[in-house]
């Protein structure tokens, strides 16, 4: 069982995520992707040969290359999604601040 450390790590991360949700430090919808990630890690750690099988299906002769490709693309996609989200939040914040400023100006005018 040389995959035991990965199983332990995945389980610890899942427990950490759930306890964060219980303490209301993390929202349920945000946790979804991370729990999926951990489950994938658990599956791979428990059945390492599944990677070989998928690699041979895709015609990749060196299975670890598949793992690395998947990981790198997953990280790439996640960072892109986060960037998009930050941009969106920034725009919303600007809008909200502008509206607030206008409201304040109206209030000052009434005095």
């Amino acid at each position: 069982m040389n995959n035991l450390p990965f199983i332990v790590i995945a389980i610890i991360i899942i427990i950490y995520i759930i306890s964060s949700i219980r303490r209301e430090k993390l929202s349920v919808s945000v946790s979804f992707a991370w729990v999926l990630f951990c489950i994938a890690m658990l599956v791979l750690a428990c059945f390492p040969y599944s990677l070989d099988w998928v690699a041979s299906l895709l015609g990749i002769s060196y299975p670890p290359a598949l793992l690395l490709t998947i990981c790198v693309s997953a990280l790439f996609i996640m960072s892109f999604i986060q960037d998009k989200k930050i941009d969106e939040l920034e725009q919303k914040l600007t809008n909200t601040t502008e509206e607030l400023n206008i409201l304040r100006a109206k209030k000052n005018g009434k005095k």
Partner: protein
Amino acid sequence: MKARTIVVIPAHNEAETIETVISDIKKEIKTADILVINDCSTDRTEARIRCVKGCTYINNVHNMGYAMSVQTGIKYAKENNYDYVIQMDADGQHLSSEAKKCLDAAIEKNADIVLGSRFKKNTGYKSPFFRRAGTSLFESLIRIFCHKTIKDPLTGLQVLNRRVIEYYSESGAYPEYPDAGLIIEMLMKKYKIIEVPVKMKQRKNGTSMHDGFFSPVGYMIKQLYSCVIIFIKFVGRRYE
């Protein structure tokens, strides 16, 4: 003393129906105030609301979605000391006479949450396949987790009392889809939830947030996940 009631209607591009919905409510529930939350509609919804007298409205600064619009309304109700919130859709699906029935039930039976249920009695309401599948899936989930049968957990017609208004408006984790998961949470927190059989009209125009194929499937997966997580979140504190 009479209970102060407010009808909260989130609206996104509902120019065709919003006026009728509001005037129906005025006819049926005379004592209630009306609050429309205009969630950045791109059609003439705002102009239509402005035409109606005696109706408060909020224009969201940006498009916040259904749940956050509802929460805005609930927060407004808390600020202004309302005793009951009636949550209704702007598309004309929910009838105000049925909403009145739910409100009366809430007062009479002293319930925290009243759900207007399409499936409690056979009302002849036909819903698309995914909706039926989702309804029965979440019905059984609620039965497993909370040992209570809720026939229509995805209903949008709800009446909330003061206790629930306070709880929802303080909740930092108000969910993206305030239905099955939220019902599980409230049942586990020992709130009294009852169902009242109601008639609903079939949707005539506009699009539902659950139309298409990917949107309902994604919704079901997310909601299933959140039901399980919410159960885990509250299971240890059930008897606190």
